[in-house]
């Protein structure tokens, strides 16, 4: 008997004619690792919330959800809370109390556990997760990854049978997200805990999953083990589906004409075996050594020996940092968590004044330029687009901004229409900015920033939490801006996106820029900090960092098609 059995589930939100979930049938065995993926808005979060009674959304529901053979509503309140645990997407807001130990005890206190039982479980859990050292720390001193681990531990203290994870790694950097997934994997393998997880970055979860479910528009489109799902997703010949597959799978499919389900690689290790044999006819690419975009001579932004720290007694965040950004360049700055990437961006925007060193904009001292002019010429997009919204509708947000800028920017009405078109905001105009999806919010904020026709656009982690479909359209928008001559600087953790799109890459480490190079040189020399594709084919094609590069090297006809769909 399956642990969870979802039968003919249909669901519609109130006042909505469209069903969010359509005829869902899933059965999950005890100890299975299930990954539900699909574009944002496909209903995966709604589906996973149906399994957690306490947070189930209001709406019209038909069909049955059986848990251990009984309807899930038959569980007592205590059982429902304890046996089905859930970790949410946002590390910041799902934490309730002030210190780690309070937060850990929170769930058990809610169910009235006695002190001895609590002490025993917390003791055990802390050694499993290595939390002893931070037990009495205030929660706000933890990093995002640590917060997510804390939330997981707090839920696990109730000893759940099923663990529901709603995009748990989408707000984390790659290292922290790998660490989190390893922890979940361990729970699944060592304690045989059933895991159901939604995710749109399949790269890391694919090797861990027993069952992958691909959803689109509220329906299950593909379901099965990773290999067979890859097979059916590849067989669908649908470009929008393609982008969800891990790059090794995509690479395999381009290189191999006839796809065999059993041969499909799910991780780098398997890919090395299958793919390396396929690369026969190679033409070593040493090609794009020079940065991809044209670079003229005078830098538009120049930092010389910049030092910055937040408080007198704190260590330097930026330490004698020098950097030149040229007009028309698309520069990506990478670096670990807390390396000071966001700080660097704010210094470049003239929002923070460095203690030492100078920042020049078009050869002029940044701090001598009038505030107003500076902010018009340098667009800055913070990580959280919510910070920009002050009005009730998307329309107002854009038009009011345009009204303010009317006297300073020429032809703003034309620009306005163009951006609404470029960022696909047309259908959203009457909506409240807070009701948009993460990607849509990002685009709206960007449109309002771009209305002043900035020469430079500074982006702070613009692809965080975006699904592959959105990334493609986001990339399209960036391309148009670059063509128009806008200089773009972005800081990011998203190695795959940067490798495929950036004109040049820089690494921020120890407060300074240690290297700045073309993406090919930048990534191909790294061992760990590089794309999955490069890790797979580095022996044969050391300079290949994207699927596109590999195919180019192999001179396959599918190249042209691959180029048009890969992001």
């Amino acid at each position, binding site marked *: 008997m399956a642990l969870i059995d979802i039968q003919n589930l249909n669901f519609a939100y109130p006042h909505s004619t469209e069903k969010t979930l359509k005829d869902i049938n899933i059965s999950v065995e005890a100890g299975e690792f299930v990954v539900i993926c699909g574009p944002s808005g496909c209903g995966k979060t709604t589906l996973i919330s149906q399994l957690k009674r306490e947070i189930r959304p209001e709406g019209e529901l038909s069909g049955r959800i059986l848990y251990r053979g009984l309807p899930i509503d038959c569980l007592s309140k205590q059982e429902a809370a304890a046996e089905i645990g859930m970790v949410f997407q946002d590390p910041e*807001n799902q934490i309730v109390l002030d210190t780690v130990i309070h937060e850990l005890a929170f769930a058990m206190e809610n169910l009235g556990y006695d002190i001895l039982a609590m002490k025993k479980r917390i003791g055990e859990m802390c050694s499993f997760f290595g939390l002893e050292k931070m037990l009495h720390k205030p929660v706000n001193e933890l990093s995002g990854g640590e917060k997510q681990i804390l939330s997981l531990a707090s839920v696990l203290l109730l000893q759940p049978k099923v663990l529901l994870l709603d995009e748990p790694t989408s707000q984390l950097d790659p290292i922290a997200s790998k660490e989190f997934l390893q922890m979940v994997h361990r729970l699944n393998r060592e304690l045989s805990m059933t895991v159901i997880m939604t995710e749109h970055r399949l790269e890391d979860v694919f090797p861990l999953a027993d069952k992958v479910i691909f959803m689109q528009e509220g329906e299950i489109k593909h379901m099965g083990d990773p290999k067979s799902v890859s097979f059916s997703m590849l067989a669908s010949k649908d470009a929008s589906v393609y982008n969800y597959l891990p790059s090794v799978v995509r690479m395999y499919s381009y290189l191999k004409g006839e796809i065999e389900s059993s041969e499909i690689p799910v991780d780098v290790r398997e890919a090395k075996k299958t793919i390396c044999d396929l690369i026969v006819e190679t033409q070593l690419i040493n090609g794009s050594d020079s940065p991809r975009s044209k670079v003229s001579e005078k830098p538009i932004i120049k930092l010389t020996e910049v030092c910055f720290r937040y408080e007198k007694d704190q260590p330097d965040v930026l330490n004698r940092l020098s950097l030149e950004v040229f007009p028309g360049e698309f520069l990506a700055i990478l670096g670990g968590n807390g390396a000071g990437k966001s700080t660097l961006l704010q210094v470049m925007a003239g929002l923070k004044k460095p203690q030492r060193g100078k920042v020049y904009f078009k050869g002029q001292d940044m701090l001598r330029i009038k505030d107003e002019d500076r902010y018009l010429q340098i667009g800055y997009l913070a990580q959280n687009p919510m910070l920009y919204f*002050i009005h009730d509708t998307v329309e107002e947000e854009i038009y009011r901004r345009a009204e303010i800028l009317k006297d300073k920017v020429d032809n703003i009405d034309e620009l306005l229409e163009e951006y609404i078109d470029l960022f696909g905001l047309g259908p959203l105009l009457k909506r409240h900015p807070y009701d948009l999806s993460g990607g849509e919010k990002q685009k709206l904020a960007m449109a309002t920033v771009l209305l002043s026709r900035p020469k430079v656009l500074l982006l702070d982690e613009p692809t965080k939490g975006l699904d592959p479909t959105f990334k493609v359209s986001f990339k399209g928008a960036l391309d148009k801006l670059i063509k128009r001559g806008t200089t773009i600087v972005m800081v990011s953790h998203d190695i795959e996106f940067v490798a495929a799109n950036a004109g040049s890459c820089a690494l921020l480490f120890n407060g300074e820029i240690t290297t700045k190079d073309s993406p090919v040189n930048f990534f191909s020399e790294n061992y760990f900090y590089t794309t999955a594709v490069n890790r797979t084919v580095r022996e044969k094609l050391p300079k290949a960092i994207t699927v596109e590069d590999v195919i180019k090297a192999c001179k396959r006809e599918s190249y042209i098609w691959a180029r048009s769909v890969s992001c």
Partner: protein
Amino acid sequence: MNRGFASVHPAPCFLYYVGLVILAMTIYHPLFLFFALCSQVLLNFMQDGGRRLKASARFYIFLGLFIALANPFVSHRGQTVLFYFLDNPITLEAVVYGIAMMMSLLTVLISLVSYNMVITPDKFMFLFSSAFPKTAFLCMMAMRFVPVLRRRSQEIAVVQKTRGTDISTGTFMQRIKNGMQILIILVTWSLEEAIITARSMRARGYGVIKNRSSYFDYKMTRRDWIVFFLIVSSWVNLMFLWYMDIGHFQIYPELTPLTLDVNTVIFLVASFVYLAIPLLFEGAEKLAWL
């Protein structure tokens, strides 16, 4: 950090500080107040080497001197006139009373510094969560949100600065207007995020049963009971002596001379017992590491 006096159960510790504050405010005996003040300064030095005390020492000295000096100029009660200042009599009694007031106030303030080291927020929560569980829970949630909201408002301020909404420039009215705008964003955004917090609380069974249990539990061991008994008995003893006028010291209307008679000695010994309790624990801690 649960060492020395802080290793004792929070209830007797809490009681000790409450008792001390009451004593320092009722017993206006210069010798008692002097020893009480000394004991608290010493306690602070034994607990963290006086680091926290030093941080605000300037303020305490200023406040103490201000009170000690202001009293004789404001109050003209007392028989023994020392001199006249602008036709107003400055009396010995008022001077002594001012000094006593200074010592009383400083004892209370300095004991609060040590109190904060001993009764951490955790222990405070423990003490009051049984009496006011909901309030205690709310306090813990609020404590989490103070730094979160502060960080959010800073983030908003930086971003809104690029839009010309700046609270550090412009006319007074303009600044208030801009500040309001930032506040509006902060509130809407925080309310939005609070929904997630609420979901997370429900998902972990908040509200499933009426009486939540509490992880924080300090058991009264035998040692704690002994300390508890010692604190209560020495406090009652001291108050009783004071009430019975043993070791009585009169300031107004006329200062009685300070003599070291039997009664005063009994009174001082009783005071030493009470004042020495935390020092003993800190001393034992130091001895263990010699």
